[in-house]
């Protein structure tokens, strides 16, 4: 039985560098505490070499040149820890969440998938580096030995069974995670490394340090055995970014969003999942353009944070961060936040990725990811409600449809249903008697409807005037009465007519309308009883 441990040294700093990769390589200092009592809680090697010490105040640190100063973000650490767990779950289902910077995996049964323990350790290191952190990975026959090796040795360490004591012996006593007082006591005894601790007699050690001493002795020998405490699998994927300076424009914002999306997509890839929906939340700062009254109202709300939320639901799960960024950008362009952004929180709903198994005989349709991007661009051009597919509603109202989202699900040739067969049979029977083939006539709708002036003679329209044109009615068919939903405010009560109108005899009333309408056409005109007026709904074409 073997266990692997992933440990992230300088976890606070690495989680920050993960969010801001540009900081990698520069002297970095992390401050924590309540303002103005900020003090240094972490500093990387470059900063320490420059003279920075832990516990320094912010004013002392600002004296150093070329040292980047950042504030500790628990949200970023939480996200980095979640990402680390995702890496572990991508390799083994048995994972222990040992500490924020340490994860232990059970490697039992993984040899058939990854090969030897070295390969598994290398794979873990590669996957961890993909999420933006540089890990220490150790493999040992028991959990505690693996944890100690990962904390003490850089890079990849493999400890064969039986060699734990020899390999761990050189590690300093501070590697053990126990009380500081116990460690100081051991140092006063002259015990500085694990080998020296392992050489002490157990009985005398237990007399002086109690049960804790025995446990430390076992740890130093690499002989302590315990069972794995399994972590509960989580499907919550979220990343946060607190900004030092607020962002107002979309261009710099898209860089930050792209970074978050990259991180989320890397995590999802580790879990073999894809994005189904993106939830964006911005915490906004009050805009300077607000008037005094608005500021007063704001102050009354006792620091109520202003938020901007956006949910982007995708028709198919996708994991391409570039495509997702374009979609988010287009969505934000159409509805931008009103104030500068202080904090970004991005969460995604995960779903299994789309299985691209198309029908052998069905024609190839548009690529769903590309099409979603095209639809988003079209929505930006013509408006979100003006792109999609029409869905017919079960009503007799004239505009009996609503716009729905394109799903592109139906991509197989239509089956010949009995309804279609019946319709085609009727058309064929009618056509048999004629030389020509019949197709359904087209009808063009006027949106909005045009008001018309109609003269009635012999109980039918005889003359129609609309849109600067007037003509005689050559033939009429109607009235076709339609009414419904009288109990609602937008109920309708109409008398429809199909009118063949000849504009040639009377012509146009205005010069500019001369070519707008044909000399002859069949129009659908209706009398709206509630409004007591005539309207043109459209014409046959």
């Amino acid at each position, binding site marked *: 039985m073997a266990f692997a441990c992933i440990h992230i040294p300088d976890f606070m700093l690495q989680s920050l560098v993960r969010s801001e990769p540009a900081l990698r390589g520069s002297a970095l200092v992390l401050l924590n505490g309540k303002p103005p009592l900020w003090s240094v809680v972490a500093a990387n090697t470059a900063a320490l070499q420059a003279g920075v010490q832990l516990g320094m105040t912010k004013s002392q640190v600002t004296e150093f040149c070329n040292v980047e100063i950042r504030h500790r973000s628990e949200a970023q650490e939480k996200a980095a820890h979640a990402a680390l767990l995702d890496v572990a779950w991508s390799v083994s289902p048995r994972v222990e969440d040992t500490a924020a910077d340490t994860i232990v995996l059970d490697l039992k049964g993984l040899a058939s998938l990854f090969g030897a323990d070295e390969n598994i350790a290398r794979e873990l290191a590669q996957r961890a580096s993909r999420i933006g952190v540089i890990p220490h990975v150790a493999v040992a026959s028991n959990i505690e030995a693996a944890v100690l090796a990962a904390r003490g040795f850089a890079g990849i360490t493999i400890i064969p069974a039986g060699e734990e004591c020899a390999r761990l012996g050189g590690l300093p006593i501070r590697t053990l995670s126990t009380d500081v007082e116990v460690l100081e006591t051991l140092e006063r005894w002259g015990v500085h490394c694990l080998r020296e601790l392992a050489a002490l007699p157990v009985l005398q050690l237990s007399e002086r340090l109690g049960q804790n001493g025995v446990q430390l002795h076992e740890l130093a020998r690499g002989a302590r055995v315990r069972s794995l405490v399994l972590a509960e699998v989580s499907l919550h994927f979220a990343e946060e970014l607190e900004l030092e300076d607020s962002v107002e424009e979309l261009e710099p914002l898209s860089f930050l969003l792209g970074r978050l999306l990259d991180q989320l997509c890397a995590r999802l890839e580790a879990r073999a999942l894809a994005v189904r929906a993106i939830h964006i939340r911005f915490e906004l700062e009050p805009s300077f353009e607000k008037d005094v009254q608005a500021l007063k109202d704001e102050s009354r709300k006792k620091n109520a944070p202003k938020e901007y939320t956006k949910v982007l639901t995708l028709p198919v799960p996708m994991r391409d961060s570039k495509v997702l960024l374009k979609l988010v950008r287009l969505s934000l362009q159409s509805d931008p936040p009103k104030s500068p952004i202080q904090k970004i929180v991005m969460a995604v709903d995960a779903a299994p990725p789309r299985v691209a198994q198309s029908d052998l005989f069905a024609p190839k349709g548009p690529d769903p990811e*590309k099409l979603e991007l095209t639809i988003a661009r079209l929505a930006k051009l013509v408006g979100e409600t003006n792109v999609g597919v*029409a869905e017919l509603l079960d009503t007799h109202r004239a505009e009996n449809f609503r716009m729905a989202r394109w799903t592109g699900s*139906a991509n197989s040739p239509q089956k010949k249903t009995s309804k279609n067969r019946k319709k085609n049979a009727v058309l064929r029977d009618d056509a048999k008697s004629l030389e020509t083939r019949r*197709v*359904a006539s087209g009808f063009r*709708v006027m949106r909005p409807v045009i008001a018309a002036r109609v003269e009635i003679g012999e109980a039918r329209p005889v003359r129609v005037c609309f849109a600067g044109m007037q003509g005689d009615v050559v*033939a009429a068919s109607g009235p076709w009465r339609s009414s419904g939903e009288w109990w609602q405010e937008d109920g309708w009560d109409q008398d429809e007519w199909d009118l063949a109108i000849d504009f040639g005899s009377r012509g146009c009333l205005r010069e500019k309308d001369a070519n707008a*309408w044909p000399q*002859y056409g069949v129009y659908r005109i209706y009398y709206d009883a509630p409004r007591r007026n005539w309207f043109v709904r459209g014409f046959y*074409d």
Partner: protein
Amino acid sequence: MAASSLAAALRSKIELDLRGRVLSPFNYRDRNIFEIVSTGIPEIDAAVGGLPRGAMTEICGPPCSGRTSLLLSALAARTADGEACALVDARDSFDPHQASTAGVALNQLLWVRCQNADQALRATDLLIQGGGFGLVAVDLSDIAPKIVRYVPLNAWFRFRRAVEDTPTILMVVEQEANAKTCASLVLRLKAQPAEWKEAVAPQGPVRDLRDLVKYSFARLLKGFEISADVVRSRVQCANDWPSTNENVANEFGSKRTPDRAGVFEAVAM
């Protein structure tokens, strides 16, 4: 000998310069051979073969001339074959109910409701660049001809180039043909006056209905007879198309007398 070696050197230099941009600059490529699909109207298919893929087709005619009937028929035929289609509606005049009656599978038709010609052209560009659609129909019927006339020729060239070598049919419906040589097939439609189904007096003792037929408006709209003329066709079929009018297939000029391509009837439903 010297001339031939010079020509060979020149040829190799041109090929070297165009490497990566043009695959084989000296190989003639016939751009007029298209895959043809049905319009859904046998008369039109018999006359012009159908709609060419990877090319632009213009359907023109005045209002009430049957353009929408042909458009719906083509959309119905494509969606029935399981293809995804897109309709760019320049003036938001598409009637989904009538389209459904004509057999269009609405769940496979992406409808873009524009407000003007500029939006429509931009939307068309996006859809063609996106790719994957079997038919992209651009309905400019309700845009005044003088506005469509001002669409620069390079826009039409851009559309033609974008659909070239793709399985997409680009169909533009308008009042006048404007794409000039960019269109591989141009059809002009014309409708005859509407036909009406007169009410017939019922046999038997029903007196009230018999009284009703004395009114002239007691009738139903039956339909229209629509004739289609070929203004221009540079379509040569890739498959064995039984060309009924070979002269049309090989015609490239635009000043010729239009051929009567086919007559069909659109019935009111």
